[in-house]
């Protein structure tokens, strides 16, 4: 029994030249040629805008289907659709991309400072402006030795570090969730920009081996593709405990997405489900996390920094403190807006906390305990633009990780159909005919451009703030003010209200 009206409506105007390009481009099968014209199956349209982008005659528009229900604030159309879908299938509703619900976005409630008269702003085009960032464990102080000539030598032995030329890194997105071309673009752009990408938990495709100095490899609960050569082919290792889009649950790459190539990289037979258990079964407590951190350090003879990624949950500050004390060199906090290739909707939309609040609390907690230097903080989950990067750094992040924003640069239109594997833009798919739509060279160029533009904007703001190094903004909450927030949130964020 059909209950749901379509979500979108595809309109084809008279200017259609019947070239059928749109039909070829639509990976969701929403368009067909019938009776000498293009006909749409509105139910199948995902509003990915592949057809509108490629129509040479600009003859296609996608609109919201004008289905008017009786107004009801409580029983929204989204809720009704979910109930009908569950009534049909008896199954959990699966979705892709990040939480799209209207929870507050605290980035948009914080404003940055600028210099006027009493201290000068700096022109970033004229004077040096530094974004270089090192991720890794730092000692609390340094020791030097001075020889008779007065030359000074560092005697403190430094832990391994990752050198970044921008405080922006690429978030973990596994081969399987995204296509090989996406990973090649991320790796190529990371190398060109002097930053790093993260393989996610799907193993390391052989094609990426030349980029190993710009790659973070993940050790997640599924342990896919992990062996000694994997652990040593990287700039750092990340233990994935959780993900902002789906805190507390595991992952599950359905068998139909486990192609020959994916199977080779994950080292499992093709066609079988790739299941990542909810916890790591060697980590049931914080002391077990320490055991795994040091197992990875032992396995790589202490040459690689080991990070830990956790989802932002209610008690994140205390958890982060434990993670740092367990020996993590970096801690990634992933907020509830973070993206995903697939997650149960109930988890994606209702679990976790905003990254802004989580980050502020974690930085503060580590400082209070005097252990902030022991690990770098990476904030992720809904970082959209350079302003978000700056605000995250002012709250205390060493760097931010971006996933969705990088995919948007490659063509993602946020249609949230990642979990179907039908991505028309060649991003979240393993279908060869779709993957080849994403040109690696062009993708690298676009992503490099986007980050370069962000870097310019970050430098512009640093100049306006009167500082010429990113570390002088890092944790400097004095340069942030809150608007449209009550005192409790200001207190959690550790910032003053605008006007004070």
């Amino acid at each position: 029994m059909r209950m749901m009206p379509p979500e979108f409506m595809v309109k084809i105007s008279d200017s259609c030249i019947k070239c059928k390009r749109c039909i070829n481009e639509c990976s969701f099968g929403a368009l067909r040629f019938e009776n000498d014209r293009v006909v749409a199956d509105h139910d199948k349209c995902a509003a990915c805008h592949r057809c509108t982008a490629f129509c040479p005659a600009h003859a296609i528009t996608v609109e919201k289907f004008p289905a008017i229900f009786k107004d009801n604030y409580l029983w929204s159309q989204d809720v009704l659709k979910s109930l009908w879908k569950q009534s049909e299938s008896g199954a959990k509703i699966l979705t892709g991309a990040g939480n799209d619900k209207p929870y507050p976005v605290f980035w948009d409630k914080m404003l940055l400072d600028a210099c006027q008269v009493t201290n000068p702003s700096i022109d970033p085009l004229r004077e040096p402006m530094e974004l270089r960032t090192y991720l890794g464990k730092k000692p609390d102080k340094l020791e030097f030795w001075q020889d008779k000539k007065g030359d000074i030598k560092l005697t403190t032995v430094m832990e391994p570090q990752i050198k970044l030329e921008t405080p922006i890194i690429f978030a973990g997105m596994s081969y399987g969730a995204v296509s090989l071309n996406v990973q090649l673009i991320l790796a190529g752009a990371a190398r060109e920009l002097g930053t790093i990408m993260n393989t996610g938990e799907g193993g390391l495709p052989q094609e990426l081996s030349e980029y190993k100095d710009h790659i973070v490899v993940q050790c997640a609960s599924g342990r896919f593709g992990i062996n000694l050569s994997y652990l040593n082919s990287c700039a750092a290792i990340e233990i994935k405990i959780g993900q902002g889009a789906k805190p507390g649950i595991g992952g599950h790459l359905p068998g139909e997405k486990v192609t020959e190539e994916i199977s080779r990289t994950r080292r499992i037979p093709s066609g079988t489900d790739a299941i990542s258990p909810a916890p790591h079964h060697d980590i049931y407590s914080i002391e077990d996390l320490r055991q795994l951190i040091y197992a990875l350090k032992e396995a790589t003879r202490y040459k690689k920094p080991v990070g830990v990624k956790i989802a932002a949950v209610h008690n994140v500050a205390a958890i982060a403190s434990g993670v740092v004390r367990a020996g993590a060199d970096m801690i990634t906090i992933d907020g509830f807006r973070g993206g995903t290739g697939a997650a149960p909707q109930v988890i994606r939309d209702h679990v976790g906390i905003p990254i802004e609040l989580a980050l502020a609390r974690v930085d503060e907690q580590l400082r209070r305990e005097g252990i902030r230097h022991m690990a770098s903080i990476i904030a992720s989950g809904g970082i959209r633009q350079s302003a978000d990067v700056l605000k995250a750094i002012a709250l205390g992040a060493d760097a931010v990780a971006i996933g969705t924003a990088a995919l948007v640069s490659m063509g993602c239109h946020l249609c949230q159909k990642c979990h179907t594997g039908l991505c028309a833009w060649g991003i979240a798919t393993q279908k060869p005919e779709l993957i080849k739509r994403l040109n690696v060279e062009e993708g690298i160029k676009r992503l490099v451009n986007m980050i370069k533009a962000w870097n310019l904007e970050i430098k512009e703001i640093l100049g306006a703030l009167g500082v010429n190094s990113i570390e002088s903004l890092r944790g400097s909450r004095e340069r942030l003010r809150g608007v449209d927030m009550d005192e409790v949130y200001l207190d959690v964020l550790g910032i003053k209200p605008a006007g004070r």
Partner: protein
Amino acid sequence: MFKRAETKDISGCAVVGIMNEKGKTIRGDVITSAIAVMHERSNGLGGGFAAYGIYPEFKDYYAFHIMFEDEGVKDSVETFLQDSMVVVKSEAIPIRKKMSLANTPILWRYFLEVPKSKIPAGFSEEDFIVSVVMRINTRFNGAFIFSSGKNMGIFKGLGYPEDVSRFFRLEEYEAYLWTAHGRFPTNTPGWWGGAHPFGLLDWAVVHNGEISSYGINKRYLEMFGYECTLMTDTEVIVYMLDLLLRKHNLPQDIALTALAPPFWKEIDEMDKNKKEAMTALRMVYGSALLNGPFSIIISSTSSMIGMTDRIMLRPLVVARKQDTVYMSSEESAIREVCQDPDEVWSPQGGEPVYARLEERA
């Protein structure tokens, strides 16, 4: 009167310092006439001086200069001091009675000895003094220790520096090292403690400019137990020096470099050892970098150091005449008290200039 700043202190300023490296003393009216030349750089809302070698008969005791709002808080602080140390001498700081400055607090000085038995395990004598100063300045409402070193003293108040000098009768003091400060605050609660120099133990700092990285410098210090309550850059600089030099025991050059380190571009071109040292310094002490315009004169029993930010957004002129070194925001202030210096120069941005007391045989 004791209302402290609630928002960040923002002020322009004049700084000057004079030191005789052989330890010959100079009268207080010399530095006063130097700072007075830069009258236009202050606005009458703060002036102050640091003087070294002024208490030779009490040189082994910590000299606390304390301002009090009333006799009540003075009594409770004195009880606390007597409990934690031996008060060798206690007296009013001499002032020119006929002269009045706005909001004058009770000004008293104490010479204190620390019995070994009073020092908690794991603390050095200096750690102990710092903890006493922190405690009084944060827990005793209406009391403020503005000088805590040995054989040195800070004198400061509301007014132009030359008025503050006359008020404290500084022409009667002889010191081998003087620094002075004239203040131009844009917001002030009219509190004497907010004037500069700011000191801790025998360190004193006078400072011109506003540090744009104040927010993170302050949070960094808080991690090590420093409580920055004055909302001024100068306080942060003093604590930073205390942390880097005394607590972390960094070589002086390195500590100062941490405040204004070379750019990455320069570091990348250094030889291996230096590159390694500088890279680590920036990694570990990034939060200690004083970013934004400043020129500072840092004084201690053994040295006077002048330095600007790494892109020289605030001026500093240095001169030498035989054994005497002069540092100032403006050359005119130096020329006022030393007509024909042997050399006059403006140092590189971020590069410290030292005057050092010669070791006496």
